[in-house]
């Protein structure tokens, strides 16, 4: 045997070995084949093996789940525990990955599966402490309201029963496969944590920080000018009609005196905004805090209104609701029809939280919008210069408490976060100054039990009683019932501070307008008692409307200092729609698709006047002006005038407030609402905010808008080319998302579709449209953009989107018995094992 004769074979062998090695070990190829191999590839996530019968531990009796042609489960159980178990089972079957990612977002556990890119979110969430708050809340409910805790535990059991089945059948949803992990079991804390995240995202208004930037830089008068305490033009369109008195109680100080006071001054805040040394430090600290915290709910909002039986064309009370939340895929909402011995209810749940949040039963209907009231304060802490681990409070030094949070990071070492807290709450910045945040949701809150009782309510009294437990997020609960009643109430824990006024009188104020001194004296002393919460029952006008405008008028018993209401545009518009002799169901639907732009209507004469004063012969500017002159102020996607209006707004902001804030180093200051700018323009057209001349700036803004439109879009300025809605998958993956689609509406139209000021898609809007006619058998209509299933190959992945885009509604079938379901496609029976 000689080596020489074997050289070709050896070479072939070597080449083959290298090739085999390369193919078998190349990461990319291996990943591809792992995902796509026929035995345990991703295919099993698309083909769920759903049986018609399951024997499961934890059930007391048999539960029947009938799934209709839209994928909506109609669940029939003999008791509430089994009902909640079945909701958990169905949520997990259709939305398990969404539930997992949402609880991780709330608990600060995203980095565990997404790696270090998600660490920033986790650090913020762990600092705020939603998970910690969820744990104490769950424990409190377990000890004090065990019957409610058992329902949430039954829900968790239902989720976990499905997780076991999915793992056994290799049926975990696609995203688990793509991200290569398995879900942990669900717990009561997970449901509460996600509820806390929803609460946080609806109440984390950073206005006290943002307003303080302006007050620190320009003085309190300028801040109060562009951020008035009581928004201009909203006196006649408040959520609660009337002058604000509640059950004969009214504020004991002249509200007009209060509104003129300097609420940034030392008597109000304990801080000296006029001290340049302090102000500079404060600006640096706030900028740092805002960078840490990220965005606040600028794009969120909602509409709700109710019409009494006496005013409705059919003689029945009617209710409409459309919460403007993230238009995500999978949708936030999951439709259900629930039946047990004491629950018969239809509506939408949040995947991860079992009760129906917005819906109706056989007697009542309810809808929610955000009250926008302040329940989050920021305190400037005094740190001991000798010992930075101590802070001053109520006359003595206290040690800063440190909570150690370990964040697991995929493919990295765990990140250890030390959260420093004072008596107020977590410290969010220690740069230049130390600022802590105090939010009502950081403590035990009981909305998780309130909403269960709302589902069971049979009349207005039950409904109000249920809401006594509602803490956060404070909401306008709109109500209508089969007896013809309508009502609205704003339940929530609204913190009150006792303030001594310059005239030595003392009053309770709700919320704050700036950061506060943390050394004591500016603390929450009590909460608004339930009986004095803003509410209205069967008002004379025959309707109620709550599209995030000012809650209640000036004579409300407590002075509302902190509230971040939306512009009153939608409130004005819906008041016009509803303020007619008779309102029909079609009017209710028309209201939800209405795209009239109130601000454009209010501003148009000023812009035209500006162009008369400072004309331009440019043909594009002439075109823009003519479009505005001949416009009916509706933001239709096939029109050109909305583009001119929106670009004028962007250009105007850019030439005024954005420019000014940038020059002053306070870019994160809040852009004032158009209605407040309008008030300033009418009363102080030569304000420095307008570069000394509102009309010249307004004219230049139109010229800029026309130039921009011409350069970017040529001669076709159609709104739909600029304004598009995009339903982004929670993963951000385009392949799993929908759109972009040309879209009607805009900022502050009833059909809300706000896009970022300088480009981007509409990503927030009516996340659920519901209209209920409270006849003897209530008739509900609704639609949300998305579908019941998160499985991208399911027919119910995005099947509602077309209906939503075209303003159509599905009939919501509150089927009190299975025989009322005419489009059943599958029946699943769960029985105890």
């Amino acid at each position, binding site marked *: *045997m000689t080596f020489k*004769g*074997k050289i070709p*074979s*050896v070479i*072939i*062998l070597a080449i*083959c*070995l290298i*090739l*085999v090695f390369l*193919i*078998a070990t190349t990461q990319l*190829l*291996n990943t*591809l*084949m792992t*995902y*796509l*191999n*026929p*035995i*345990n*590839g*991703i*295919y099993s*996530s*698309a*083909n769920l093996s759903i049986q018609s019968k399951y024997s499961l531990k934890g059930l007391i009796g048999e539960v029947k789940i009938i799934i209709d042609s839209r994928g909506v489960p109609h669940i029939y159980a003999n008791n509430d525990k089994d009902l909640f178990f079945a909701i958990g089972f169905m949520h997990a079957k259709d939305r398990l990955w969404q539930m997992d990612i949402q609880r991780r977002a709330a608990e600060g556990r995203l980095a565990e599966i997404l790696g270090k890119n998600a660490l920033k979110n986790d650090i913020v969430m762990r600092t705020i402490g939603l998970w910690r708050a969820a744990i104490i809340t769950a424990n409190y409910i377990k000890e004090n309201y065990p019957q409610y805790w058992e329902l949430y535990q039954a829900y968790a059991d239902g989720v976990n029963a499905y997780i076991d089945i999915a793992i056994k059948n290799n049926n975990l949803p*696609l995203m688990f496969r*793509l991200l290569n992990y398995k879900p942990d079991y669900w717990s009561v804390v997970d449901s509460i944590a996600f509820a806390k995240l929803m609460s946080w995202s609806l109440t984390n208004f950073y206005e006290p920080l943002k307003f303080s930037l302006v007050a620190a830089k320009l003085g309190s008068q300028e801040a109060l000018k562009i951020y008035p305490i009581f928004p201009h033009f909203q006196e006649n369109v408040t959520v609660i009609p009337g002058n604000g008195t509640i059950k004969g109680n009214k504020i004991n100080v002249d509200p007009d005196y209060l509104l003129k006071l300097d609420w940034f001054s030392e008597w109000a805040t304990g801080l000296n905004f006029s001290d340049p040394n302090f102000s500079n430090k404060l600006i640096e600290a706030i900028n740092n805090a805002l960078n840490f915290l990220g965005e606040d709910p600028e794009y969120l909002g909602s509409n709700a209104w109710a019409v009494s039986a006496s005013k409705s064309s059919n003689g029945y009370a009617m209710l409409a609701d459309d919460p403007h939340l993230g238009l995500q895929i999978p949708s936030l909402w999951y439709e259900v029809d629930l039946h047990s011995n004491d629950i018969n209810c239809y509506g939408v749940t949040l995947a991860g939280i079992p009760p129906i949040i917005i819906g109706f039963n056989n007697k009542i209907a309810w809808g929610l919008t955000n009250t926008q009231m302040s329940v989050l304060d920021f305190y400037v802490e005094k740190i001991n210069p000798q010992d930075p681990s101590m802070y001053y409070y109520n006359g003595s030094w206290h040690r800063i408490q440190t909570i150690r949070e370990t964040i697991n990071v995929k493919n990295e070492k765990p990140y250890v976060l030390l959260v420093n807290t004072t008596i107020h709450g977590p410290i969010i910045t220690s740069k230049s100054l130390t600022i802590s945040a105090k939010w009502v949701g950081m403590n035990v809150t009981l909305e998780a039990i309130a909403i269960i009782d709302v589902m069971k309510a049979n009349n207005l009294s039950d409904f109000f009683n249920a809401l006594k437990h509602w803490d956060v997020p404070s909401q306008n609960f709109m109500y209508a019932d089969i007896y013809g009643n309508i009502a609205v109430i704003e339940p929530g824990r609204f913190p009150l501070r006792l303030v001594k006024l310059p005239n030595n009188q003392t009053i309770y104020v709700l919320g704050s307008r700036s950061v506060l001194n943390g050394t004591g004296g500016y603390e929450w002393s009590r909460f608004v008692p339930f009986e004095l919460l803003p509410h209205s029952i069967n008002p004379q006008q025959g309707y109620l409307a709550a599209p995030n405008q000012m809650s209640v008028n000036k004579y409300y018993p407590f002075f509302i200092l902190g509230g971040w209401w939306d512009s009153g545009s939608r409130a004005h518009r819906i008041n016009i729609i509803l303020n007619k002799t008779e309102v029909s169901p079609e009017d209710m639907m028309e209201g939800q698709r209405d795209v009239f732009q109130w601000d454009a209507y209010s501003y148009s004469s000023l812009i035209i006047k500006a162009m008369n004063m400072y004309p331009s012969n440019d043909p594009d500017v002439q075109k823009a002006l003519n479009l505005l002159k001949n416009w009916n102020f509706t933001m239709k996607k096939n029109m050109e005038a909305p583009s001119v209006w929106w670009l004028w707004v962007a250009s105007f902001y850019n030439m005024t407030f954005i420019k000014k804030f940038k020059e002053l180093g306070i870019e994160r200051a809040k852009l004032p609402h158009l209605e407040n700018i309008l008030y300033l323009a009418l009363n102080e057209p030569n304000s420095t905010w307008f570069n000394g001349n509102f009309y010249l700036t307004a004219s230049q803004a139109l010229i800029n808008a026309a130039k921009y439109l011409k350069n970017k879009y040529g001669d076709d300025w159609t709104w739909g080319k600029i304004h598009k809605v995009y339903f982004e998958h929670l993963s951000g*993956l*385009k*392949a*799993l998302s929908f759109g972009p689609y040309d879209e009607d509406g805009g900022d502050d139209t009833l059909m809300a579709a706000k896009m970022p000021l300088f480009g981007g898609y509409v990503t927030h809007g009516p996340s659920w449209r519901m209209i209920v006619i409270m006849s003897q058998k209530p008739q509900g209509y609704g639609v949300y953009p998305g579908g019941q299933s998160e499985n*991208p*190959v399911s027919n119910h992945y995005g099947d509602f989107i077309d209906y939503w885009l075209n303003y159509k509604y599905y009939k919501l079938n509150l089927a009190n018995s299975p025989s009322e379901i005419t489009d059943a496609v599958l029946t699943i029976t769960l029985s105890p094992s």
Partner: protein
Amino acid sequence: MKFKFLLSIVVIAVIYYVLVLLVKDWRTAIIAGLIGGTLYKERLKSFLAGLIGSFIAWFALMAPILFNEANQKLLSIFSSIADFPLEIILALIFLLPTILGGLSSLIASTIRKILEK
């Protein structure tokens, strides 16, 4: 001769099919190829037997998946996520195990040839 060729194809196909089911790893084509390849000294035929055998086994496993509408939809979504044409992904799914089987078979027959010389 033909019989031996067919035999090695069948051996490779059966071994690969069983191994994928048991071990749940597409790279078991290496083992199947190495076993089947020892039946042959002729390198080209051995390579072809490995190719064909592993292709048959893989096709038998993949066919029910590819003829399912939901899976076709899923593959198309996967190609969008991966930002890679579906045709290339499909080609890779079939080519990789096939080539691995062929090369492994060739390795086995080459080793046998070296040892027998």
